[in-house]
């Protein structure tokens, strides 16, 4: 016996090869699993509880996967729905599913797995000594937890298995580990646990483990000894190198991967080419431990307005750091004088595009740029204050002179107004694990039927 998992793409919303998906369905998978989220784009998705990808892109890809599920007659699972996997984005994904079920004429049992955590639950766990910081972790307190706009726990294989055990044809999961949606069924069916987690890690980014990373769609076959990975896009291969190298990706330790209830150790894994396209992996080890789930949280860090100007005058380009430093000091003074706002109540930072905007103080190259972009970032406690500062500094960013006796310069503003409201900004505020008595203690399931009879 073996368990086949079809992974259409590394993330719903970035498209996949439809022909390869059809080949995957023809290969008779036992489940279709797709990741819907990540922290990769930053804290805004979790902070705001919204999807990073467009509704239209998500719906068009989910339509194809719901059709494929219908043809294959197997469950379809999405993890970390709506990028951040909050209850709100699970419901957003459920709404899309309900619309599609009606449009496709499908009648379906849909399970929703919710991962959002009330601050009070986490505060209680903190008081009970059941929260452990990972390295490095921000300081937390009951007040800080209460101030977070969203907290989620990353579900593991057990919670996804509980959702599948309802008999649901579609599982819309909130935040899960990237791997749990893939490992859940093989583990439930008794396949090798080390292989289940290792194969899941290899497959979680779709075709990133192949020689054609943009190709999408792979098939993982798990059994009692190991797993086999096979790309379904034409002219794409898995090699022992492409598969083993994937453990490096977005992973601080290339041999160990922590999951709820233990960790994966691939130190002794063996990678063997079965043919030019498929790779077989054995020797991966699962090491059980106490049952903890990782927490993610985001907290409001203020409201931002940005301003952009371009300096082309060679005299200003040559002295741009001095210009920006003097302008900054002058503006701090003006903001106190005119708004009565002291430096601790807002921040204003200039990034010099063309000098060191990407690397800041680490930058060690000096060039002679033709022009320099001045990106001003204003962060304040309200959107109104940030916008007011943006308007106040606008004329100085446009005209500030390097010397007192020269005619006022005028730099290039690329649009009107030069300042743009960026709205609320968030910061990641948790890097901790929470211990549970049993896997479903911090998660909740909801089962419903959608579509036409």
């Amino acid at each position: 016996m073996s368990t086949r998992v079809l992974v259409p793409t590394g993330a719903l919303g970035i498209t996949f090869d439809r022909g390869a998906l059809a080949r995957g369905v023809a290969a008779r998978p036992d489940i279709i699993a797709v990741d819907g989220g990540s922290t990769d784009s930053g804290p805004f998705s979790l902070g705001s509880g919204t999807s990073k990808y467009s509704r239209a892109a998500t719906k068009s890809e989910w339509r194809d996967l719901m059709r494929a599920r219908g043809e294959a007659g197997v469950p379809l699972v999405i993890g970390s729905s709506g990028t951040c996997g909050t209850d709100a984005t699970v419901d957003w994904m459920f709404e899309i599913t309900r619309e599609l079920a009606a449009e496709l004429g499908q009648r379906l049992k849909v399970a929703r797995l919710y991962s959002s955590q009330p601050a009070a639950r986490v505060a209680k766990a903190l008081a009970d000594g059941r929260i452990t910081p990972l390295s490095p972790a921000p300081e937390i307190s009951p007040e800080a937890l209460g101030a977070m706009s969203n907290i989620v726990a990353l579900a593991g294989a057990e919670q996804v298995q509980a959702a599948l055990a309802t008999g649901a044809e579609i599982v819309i999961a909130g935040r899960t580990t990237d791997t749990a949606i893939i490992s859940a069924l093989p583990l439930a069916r008794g396949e090798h646990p080390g292989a289940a987690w290792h194969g899941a890690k290899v497959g979680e980014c779709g075709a990133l483990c192949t020689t054609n990373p943009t190709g999408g769609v792979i098939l993982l076959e798990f059994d009692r000894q190991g797993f086999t990975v096979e790309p379904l896009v034409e002219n794409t291969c898995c090699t022992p190198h492409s598969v083993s190298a994937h453990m490096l990706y977005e992973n601080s330790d290339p041999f160990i991967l922590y999951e709820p209830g233990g960790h994966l150790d691939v130190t002794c894994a063996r990678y063997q080419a079965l043919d030019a396209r498929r790779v077989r992996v054995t020797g991966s080890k699962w090491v059980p431990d106490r049952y903890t789930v990782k927490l993610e949280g985001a907290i409001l860090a203020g409201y931002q307005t940005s301003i952009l100007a371009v300096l082309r005058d060679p005299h200003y380009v040559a002295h741009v750091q001095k210009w920006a430093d003097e302008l900054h000091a002058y503006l701090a003074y003006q903001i106190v004088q005119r708004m009565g706002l002291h430096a601790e109540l807002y921040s204003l930072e200039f990034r010099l595009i063309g000098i060191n905007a990407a690397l800041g103080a680490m930058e060690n190259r000096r060039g002679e740029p033709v022009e320099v972009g001045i990106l001003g970032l204003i962060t304040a406690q309200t959107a109104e204050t940030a916008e007011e500062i943006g308007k106040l500094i606008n004329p100085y960013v446009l005209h500030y002179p390097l010397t007192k006796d020269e005619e006022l310069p005028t730099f290039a503003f690329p649009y009107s107004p030069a300042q743009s409201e960026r709205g609320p900004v968030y910061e990641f505020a948790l890097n901790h694990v929470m211990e549970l008595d049993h896997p479903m203690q911090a998660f909740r399931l909801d089962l419903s039927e959608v579509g036409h009879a």
Partner: protein
Amino acid sequence: MPRLGDRVLKVRSKNAGPFWITVDVFCGSTEVFEQVRHELRTEAVAVLFQQPSQLMKRFDIGDLNVIKFSFPRPVVQGARTDRDMHGAQWAVLLAEFPVGH
């Protein structure tokens, strides 16, 4: 002195979660791997990335001819003063780092 990026196949970097950055040096051959792993000192990489060297994790992976460095992000991903949301441009610093003769 040649730059690391001119001697190896690829240098890449990426967040490993919001609190870590990881940098992979793909040497491309056993020969280059054996040379580079002796020439590239962890302390020098720590200085380049302005990190305390005791926080640098290093993995020399012979099976893949890869040298991997991981370290906590000095600024958490997406915090107000973060300049590179995905941490992918950090690799360029190491690719431009002079190493060897």
